[in-house]
């Protein structure tokens, strides 16, 4: 399993380099001369040249990329063009809320999606199955922003049940929970469909295998068959799917954060891009890409835990 994880880690290196290269190129777009900015408005031309040398801006571009890499590794992502604060500080404040939102979404959407998918498979062809299929087809066909706008309009505004602007506080406080309810509901609703669908397909496949027939022949109760023999095997493709859908989750989070003014990385990225704040945009996109890689890595580890075969081949 360690081997397997190491292999996956090695595979993410070129991706990470690609993302960093992109971040570096984005910084080249900053319209002003960075040396002049660092030297300050009153600096003499000689001083600007000196600063340019100190910063390595007169060196070939790949050396500059190397300098950029070492700076990023030290946690220096530059300074926002708009707010003039360090990018890493702005990101630091935004990462928590984004992680919170994703957690609050997954914690209810994944179990519910798996449950719905399993129910559909067990009652295959009957009304319950059809309802689950309809829900999941509708789910994968609906834009996140539509769900967000509807929930906001009815639950938030007309019925006044839950707050719908910003973050209320930490997750464990009552205000925090109330504030995260609608964003988490929005993001989760689009996520249930694909999970339920995949679980259903996987569970149907397992239900028709010999070992399930054996389990039934042994006289196990249907509940035990489903829980012990079907679900565990069906979970393997479902976990993979969640990994593949990580991009989907990330995209949903960006839209959800924007709709609910949730102070996360996605909203920060969109705002920075629209304001041409290149350093901040670079930092935010870097963090989102990193989040994507980490989610996939976690999924890979889960995969190895669930599927013992990975061990031998890994």
């Amino acid at each position: 399993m360690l081997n397997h994880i190491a292999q996956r880690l090695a595979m993410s290196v070129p991706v990470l380099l690609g993302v960093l290269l992109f971040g570096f190129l984005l910084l080249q777009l900053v319209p002003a001369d960075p040396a002049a900015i660092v030297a300050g408005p009153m600096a003499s031309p000689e001083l600007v040249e000196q600063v340019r040398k100190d910063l390595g801006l007169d060196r070939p571009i790949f050396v500059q990329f190397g300098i950029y890499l070492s700076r990023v590794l030290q946690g220096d992502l530059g300074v926002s063009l708009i707010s003039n604060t360090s990018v890493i500080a702005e990101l630091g404040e935004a990462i928590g809320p984004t992680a919170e939102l994703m957690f609050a979404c997954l914690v209810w959407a994944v179990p519910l999606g798996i449950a719905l998918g399993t129910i559909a498979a067990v009652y295959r062809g009957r009304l319950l199955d059809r309802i689950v299929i309809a829900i999941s087809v509708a789910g994968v066909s609906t834009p996140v922003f539509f769900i967000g706008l509807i929930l906001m309009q009815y639950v938030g505004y007309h019925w006044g049940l839950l707050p719908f602007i910003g973050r209320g506080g930490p997750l464990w406080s009552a205000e925090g929970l109330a504030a995260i309810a609608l964003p988490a509901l929005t993001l989760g609703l689009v996520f249930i469909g694909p999970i339920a669908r995949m679980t259903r397909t996987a569970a149907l496949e397992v239900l028709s295998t010999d070992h399930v027939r054996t389990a039934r022949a042994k006289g196990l109760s249907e509940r035990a068959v489903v829980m012990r023999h079907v679900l565990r095997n069906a979970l393997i493709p479902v976990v993979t799917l969640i990994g593949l859908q990580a991009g989907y989750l990330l995209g949903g989070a960006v839209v959800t954060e924007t709709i609910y003014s949730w102070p996360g990385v996605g909203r920060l990225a969109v705002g920075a891009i629209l304001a041409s704040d290149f350093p901040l945009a670079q930092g935010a996109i870097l963090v989102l890409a990193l989040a994507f890689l980490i989610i996939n890595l976690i999924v890979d580890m889960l995969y190895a835990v669930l599927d013992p075969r990975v061990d031998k081949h890994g």
Partner: protein
Amino acid sequence: MADITAAAPVASRPLKAFGRRILKDKLALLAAFILLFIVLAALFAPWLAPFDPYNTTRRPFIPPIWSEGSLPQYWLGTDGQGRDMLSRLLYGTRLTLVMGLASIVIGGGVGALIALLGVYYRRLDPYIMRAADILLSFPAILLGLALAAVVGPGLTAIVIALSIATIPDVARITRSAAIVIMGQDYMEAGRAMGLPDRTLIWRYLALNCLSPVFVFMTLRFGQIILIGAALSFLGLGVRTPEAELGMMASLGRDALFFAPHISLLPSLVIIAIVLCVNLLGDALRDLLDPRMRNQ
């Protein structure tokens, strides 16, 4: 010899069978009709639109005809800038469909082509697949954000991002289909006959793996529309005054509580398009994958 060449060729049977099947499948038939209706409406938008979609001289926030305070000449009301909603929806659907089609054609074309070349010229295969793996690691929404940051928000950024995001998946599907075809006798026969590579790749290989790739691209088309609309919604796509469904939905956000139609109508059109595409794609897949059909 003539018989062998005749064996290679593309099956027209699946299409006919699909036609027969879709007539039986009422849901897919309904989806096909609605989609056709939407596509035609978008295609003929300049002739169908009752008003100029950019004209802002009307009263803003007129509700659609089923609500109180509506005006009979504006069926779907007006938006916050006093533009006729129906006209804008027609033009917006047009741009949304163009965005999706352009992305799927460019991305799907490139993806399928590199996969075919990889399967045919074995030496290229590992490099192409490794590149596809790396591309696969970038989710479409991230590519969209990144490209919008570099080239500035706009339709171009979105289409490039969606195309790139389509390449690796289509390449994988094409590759697995093409590998099966490569093992067929008629490939060997064609080669033995001394047919040029171009003919073998195009007539023998590409045309025969068309159907699974087509099914995949259909299902993918719905996703592409959703991602594109989301990027537009975020303000990274088309700029005002141009109309695009995702961006129209975003424009109505400020008026959500007193004129919800401005946001919700374009969202509903997006749902209709994606739902119909997904239902059709599912019907197509059931047809081509016998294992799924039996379930």
